[in-house]
């Protein structure tokens, strides 16, 4: 009885706290948080917003702790693989990390937790494998074309639809406006370079693996063609391109040194940040150019969402209650422009149309094979050698394929 009263009192107190917090855009805190719930995530604006929402619920009874770190992927993979209890009760992962964790059987299904609440979450937020709810997606992302509308209009050009048009537009911008390097792309060695290759390769119609197997299939004609397109673009890019990551590309666009670039849609709003950008209001967005005329856009669709480990320290019910709180539509509304949210209450503004543009242009979802990460990693190592002119594209692709085969055998995806 006393415990019941205490619970009711605490609930009231939390409700009051939530009531006070509501004007700032926070939902009512979950009443059943006792102790600590730890969530791990990469640091990005939408997650900082949710972390602030979590911080509102700190009380003497409980706390939701959100760790934002640039090494979230590594910490998640290591934590979820632990034989003892995972130090995190939930993590935010991208779909590629989800594929790896799922393939290793390290995720806890949330079906039993969700079932009593049927209808509260939207279909768009649910990631199911067969009938099991394995993740709660809260935002989506993709790569889109950022372009200088003012310069293209002055040159009488429309936004490029394919890579040939992109090169023609770059030549015109160079000629008409004296832009030394009109294109900026994320070609940095490793993850960035491999991702650009993946976008182009799939847009060309390539399949990374032989049907129904883990054998590599990226070293053929489509692979060569994708590298040739990247090399052609490099003629209009800064010679430092092989070390250009998303921050560098964003900087080149913001400073007006580049006028065309494929970049993450989630970075669109930064183009109009007056403290960082010299081109406020002059950048517009379109689907990433396709690799070939009338082909699908050279970009992939991504989602980010919450997952729970098989062995966590906090009770699963409590963690799920926290996730429901973080996914509350109030937080979508108060952080509307921070991400492309999956919830229906999201209202895409000038910067939030990226995923819709990519979907309309035929973007595929990011490959989900558990061995794709190995291929991606090896391509990221070897393709820059071809782009730098140190080896021929065929040699780079064959080395990546050989290396991938060796690693896939070591990991058991291919028979030794």
């Amino acid at each position, binding site marked *: 009885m006393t415990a019941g009263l205490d619970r009711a009192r605490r609930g009231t107190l939390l409700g009051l706290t939530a009531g006070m917090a509501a004007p700032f855009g926070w939902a009512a805190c979950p009443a059943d948080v006792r102790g600590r719930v730890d969530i791990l995530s990469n640091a990005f604006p939408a997650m900082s917003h949710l972390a602030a929402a979590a911080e509102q619920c700190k009380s003497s009874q409980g706390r939701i702790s959100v760790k934002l770190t640039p090494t979230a992927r590594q910490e998640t993979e290591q934590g979820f693989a632990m034989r003892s209890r995972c130090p995190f009760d939930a993590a935010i992962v991208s779909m590629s990390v989800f594929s790896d964790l799922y*393939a290793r059987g390290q995720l806890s299904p949330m079906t039993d937790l969700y079932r009593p609440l049927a209808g509260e979450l939207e279909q768009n937020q649910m990631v*199911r494998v067969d009938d099991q709810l394995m993740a709660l997606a809260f935002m989506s992302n993709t790569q889109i074309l950022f372009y200088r509308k003012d310069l293209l209009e002055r040159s009488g050009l429309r936004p490029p639809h394919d890579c040939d048009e992109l090169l023609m537009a770059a030549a015109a911008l160079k000629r008409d406006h004296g832009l030394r390097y009109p294109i900026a792309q994320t070609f940095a060695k490793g993850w960035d370079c491999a991702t650009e290759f993946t976008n182009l390769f799939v847009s060309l119609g390539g399949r990374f693996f032989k049907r*129904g197997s883990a054998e590599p299939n990226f070293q053929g004609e489509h692979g060569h063609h994708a590298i040739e397109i990247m090399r052609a673009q490099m003629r209009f890019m800064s010679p430092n391109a092989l070390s250009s990551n998303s921050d560098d590309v964003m900087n*080149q666009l913001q400073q007006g040194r580049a006028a065309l670039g494929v970049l993450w849609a989630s970075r669109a709003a930064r183009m109009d940040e007056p403290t960082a950008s010299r081109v406020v209001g002059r950048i517009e967005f379109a689907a990433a150019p396709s690799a070939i005329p009338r082909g699908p856009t050279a970009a992939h669709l991504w989602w980010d969402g919450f997952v729970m480990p098989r*062995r966590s320290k906090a009770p699963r019910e409590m963690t799920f209650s926290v996730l429901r709180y973080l996914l509350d539509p109030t937080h979508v509304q108060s952080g509307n422009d921070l991400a492309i949210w999956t919830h229906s209450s999201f209202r895409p503004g000038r910067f939030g149309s990226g995923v819709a543009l990519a979907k309309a242009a035929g973007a595929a*979802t990011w490959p989900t094979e558990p061995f794709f990460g190995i291929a991606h990693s090896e391509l990221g190592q070897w393709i820059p050698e071809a782009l730098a002119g140190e080896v021929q594209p065929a040699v780079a692709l064959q080395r990546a394929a050989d290396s991938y085969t060796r690693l896939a055998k070591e990991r058991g995806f291919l028979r030794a």
Partner: protein
Amino acid sequence: MRLAAFIQFSAPSFGVMALLLALPLLYAIYLSLIQCTDVLELVTVRLQTPFGIEELTTQRAKVGVDGLPEQFCKFVWLDQYLSVLSSEFAKALQFTMLYVLVTVPLVIIGGLILALAVNQLPVGIRGFAIGAAILPFIVTPLVGALSVKWLFRDDGLVTQLVSAFGMQIYWMAQAWSARLLVILYGIWHSLPFAFIVLFAGLQSVPKDALEAASLDGASTTQKLWYVTLPHLGPLVTFILLIHTMDSYKLFEPVVVLTQGTFTESVQFVTYSILLDEGNPFKASAAAILTTIGIGVLLIPMLRRAVREHKEGAA
């Protein structure tokens, strides 16, 4: 000292060393000799995401009754080492050695020159000069590397200054300049350590020996060569040891400045094997090879240090 007393005094420190150094090293050696792979099964699943529903046939780890993936482990003896050596490790070792061999002497010579210069300054401004000189060493390596990157990127201050003289250099675009940049960063970051150690050493140079040399008519250069430098000898050996170990573990500037393009180091390769390939067993082999490499580099210096110690004791 009696044996029992010696054991009682030294046991705690040996215990801590065993726990923190020997055991992890032995475990890393064990890991480097095995390979574990998940037991996989072919499955066809229906995947529903915010972008739609798809059916895919894929491989998935079998999960045991304990909720963990079933694994098959076997001893592969030196296979991991051979695999590491046949990968980019050899190329990475080449650049790492270049980095060590170039930065170590330049850091010591630069540190000595700076220490001698600051030592000549009036006492009133010495404190400020010391503070300014050790600043690069205080800055964390990642922040320092980012600052250097901003100076040297397309519109960076240094790039702009160089272009004012008619030279347009894209520092990360070719091997020579990317390597030069990483080496320059290494010198900039480590030189203050050599400076502060040698500056401290200069404060303890015996004044009477210097005065005696002056009375004998020794020039400034002769006093430096015959009195000051021999006095600083053990400190130079110390810097040599520390900086060789430190520079062999080259990592942050590679990640930040070039992301490994033209400048892979052995640490960077180990990191890639662990996180990109997801193979802790092979990464352990790379780590052990790195440790062996440092050991080989240090042998002549350690022998010299032991010899000097013995000579001093005699």
